């Protein structure tokens, strides 16, 4: 993958409308937003268990660390709840990606723990186009929710997104984010 630090959708034709994601140029920015969030939630798709980032460390491993440091509940989508459990982390919930999108768009939803709605949703590991459409739903119908994608491809429908980034830089960014959150 080339290092294309441009804010273009990863899938070329997936152009959004006038409102496009801000580009995260420094991981510290993402870390600060996560730290500031009162009720963050992390939505992790099945690709997290397929993508190897550094040595034997998978994307899912980074996400467990991040969630634990940020004290953010994880929703595992597709079939990967077992992968979390194997790693000693039981997600707060597991459900289809569209279901969690639907709940996040509901301003009356009181969250997985019944304690209130979330103010920040972090997305990672879904098929690009599926994340694109779900984030579009949230962009348009969840005005009180901020979204960040932690994938290495630009998602125009998030509030914040990395640009299209190579795997090595991506792993470094995630490491910095995890370090900076540092036990919220």
């Amino acid at each position, binding site marked *: *993958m*080339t290092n*294309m630090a441009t804010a273009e959708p*990863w*899938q*070329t*034709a997936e152009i*959004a*409308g*006038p*409102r496009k994601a801000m580009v995260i140029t420094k991981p510290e920015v993402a870390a600060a937003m996560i730290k500031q969030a009162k009720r963050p939630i992390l939505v992790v*798709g*099945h690709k997290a268990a397929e993508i190897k980032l550094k040595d034997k460390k998978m994307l899912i491993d980074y996400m467990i660390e991040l969630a634990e440091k940020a004290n953010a509940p994880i929703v595992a*989508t*597709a*079939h*990967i*709840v*077992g*992968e979390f*459990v*194997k790693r000693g982390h039981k997600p707060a*919930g*597991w459900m*289809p*990606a*569209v*279901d969690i*999108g*639907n*709940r996040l*768009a509901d301003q009356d939803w009181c969250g997985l723990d019944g304690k209130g709605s979330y103010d920040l949703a972090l997305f990672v590991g*879904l*098929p*690009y*186009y*599926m994340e694109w*459409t*779900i984030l*579009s*739903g949230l*962009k*348009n*119908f969840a*005005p009180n929710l901020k979204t960040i994608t932690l994938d290495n491809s630009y998602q125009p429908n998030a509030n914040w997104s990395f640009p299209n980034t190579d795997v090595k830089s991506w792993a470094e960014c995630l490491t910095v984010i995890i370090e900076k959150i540092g036990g919220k």
Partner: protein
Amino acid sequence: MSRKGLNVKIGELETDVGFAKNLEFSIGKIVDRTWEEPMGPTPFPSLTSLRNWDMKLLQRYKPFYMPFCDLCCLCTYGKCDLTRNKRGACGINMQAQQSRTVLLAACIGTSTHVGHARHMLEHLIKKFGGDHPLDVGGLNVQVEAPTIRLVCGLRPKTLSDLEEVLDYAETQVTHLLSVVHTGMEGNNLDFESKVFHAGMIDHLGMEVADIAQVAAYGFPKADPDAPIVDLGYGTISTEKPVILVIGHNVVPSVGIIDYMKENGFDDKIEICGLCCTAHDITRYHNRAKVVGPISWQLRFIRSGVPDVVVLDEQCVRADSFEEAQAIKAPVIVASEKNCMGLPDRTNDPADEIVEDLVTGKIPGALILDPEKVGEVATKLALRVAPHRKKFKALPEAAEVLEKAKECTQCNACRRACPQDLLIPEAMKAATEGNLVKLEDLYAMCVGCGRCESSCPNGLKIHSFIVSAGENKMKDETYKLRVGRGAIQDIEIRNVGSPLVLGEIPGVVAFVGCANYPKGGADVAEMAMEFANRRYIVVTSGCAAMSLGMHKDEDGKSPYEKYTGEFAAGGIVNVGSCVANSHIAGAVIKIANIFAKRNLRGNYEEIADYVLNRVGAVGVAWGAYSQKAAAIGAGFWRLGVPVIVGPHGTKYRRMLLGRADREEDWYVYDARTGEKAYVGPTPEHLFQAAETKEEAMVMIGKFCMRPNDTSKGRAIKLTHYIDLHKRLYGIMPEDIHLFVRTITDIPVTMKDEIIKILEDKDWKETVIPDPTLLPRMIRKRKE
């Protein structure tokens, strides 16, 4: 009385010329007085006749919109930015705009099937006569047209009887399309209701098209033992001239087969097909072969195997003419809906057309006479084949290795690929002399060709993938059970009780197109999983082909291994896209034949029955088209949930229940009028799954219905829990929502589940006689 008929009855009539007594006559349409079934409340429903039912569904299964575009560009006020539910210049907001777009897609799909049916019917009436009987299964199929009976209140007996159905369908499609115009509906749920209406009309169109062709062409008539035919590139004999047909409307292909047979060429020429026309040629002629689903178009044409390419309508690649030219195969276009810019030679003598095509005077011809298509295609294949063997458009391995060096690793191909395939990596490996990575892409490639269009260096990337996978392609030698058409009434009687009671855990329909996230093998795997679990598996269209492209350790394909009977453990190929009507028909017939509910113009009651009692689920794993949207919509209104693959989110909205909202899951108990909590059964009406594993767990869950007996629920729960544990590696968390009484709990999991129920503060509920319709309550609450 039928809609257009005028029936006149005169007790006594005295005129200048005589005296008549008890005179009765009909104008236009003879009244069916032999049908004792009373007419229901909604024959020939208008746009709003079933609105109340739709709103009941939409209250429970609310749309979750995922705009695929934030703008509206349909009028000159625009473009209008609708982001965050802003209103456009016409006043429409984002929600309404999304459902409006869904309605547009559904109208496209519906008009395609209805138009297909009209062309088919006109031709068949001309050829076989309007009085040709509608025999779709002899004595085994007394309910010959369940959707037509249900929607129109008609019982068609001849081809001509179907014209009235299409008159109605065409009127409805026109009205529905008009609703998309600026300044019509403004409410998203009313748009959604009309989407459902379009879907229901689509099912009518499909039913007309399929029962007409089954009856007239003598396709297998509800035959569980329909012939087994060849499927796959490797089964096509390249020793013979090869005619390739692509599309959905089999009429011109029948012309080819008839001409070949009449002139003794049927064993001298290979006729094979792609997409649904392929299904229907095998239903007509069991020497015909299926190459594969829609996604095989580019790869098969580029292989150079076809000598003549005949295109009809629907799902035909817009560049198929250019692709055929590249292998010097002449093209015949045979549908007025798909003329491809070619000269109309319909009225010219066949030999003259053949000569012009053979000499290259014209590269292709539009021929709108199916018999003439037959003569021209056959003669052309015989003339052309010896000279053009074989202008292959696929490069040899050495050329791929060489050309790969021109790749600059710019990623444009990968970024254009719908599946995000790792093409640059594979190209890099090719530069190092390794084609394995390109070969590995073959099975997952959906054949769209966008990689090539995007390549700044003009590399024929799709051809590289296919070339690297050529050995795999040549090994594609599978078997397909020919589309059987309808389900027999006796089969419905046999499975009705165990299905409605839940003892056969469900009917799972694998249908639709081939935009699969990770290749077609997933469809075969899912289908066999559920057949092995003794669900009834039905299939149609491209999915039915993908399902067949699998071999077990004994070399048998699923159609050889599993029965074609509509029974537990069967894998039942009903046929082409339009044969989807038999899947809806089977569901409807369960309500009619097994439960003795009246069909005639009685849509709402039957849909209520299906939603609450018939554990049926549709899975359109690779759905891409507007037709698929319309087919899905027809199932939603009928109360059958549909699961799509991850690309299905691009349909812009899902219809989702909320398991966490107890208040959404109450029904009436028809015995008492009391409201009863029944849990999220079925949880969603339209849902996208991210992976095949997730889809399989969803299927298990979505087959549960409020009416399941305890024994049936225990069986369904066993499958759901077992799938969840195996594929997710953990017990499901929502078991308490599906256990109504202790007797619902699978015996083998009792201790484990009881503990979960205790933790969830579970309380026992009743098993009602479920309905959403107050009028179905037999005894009102005092």
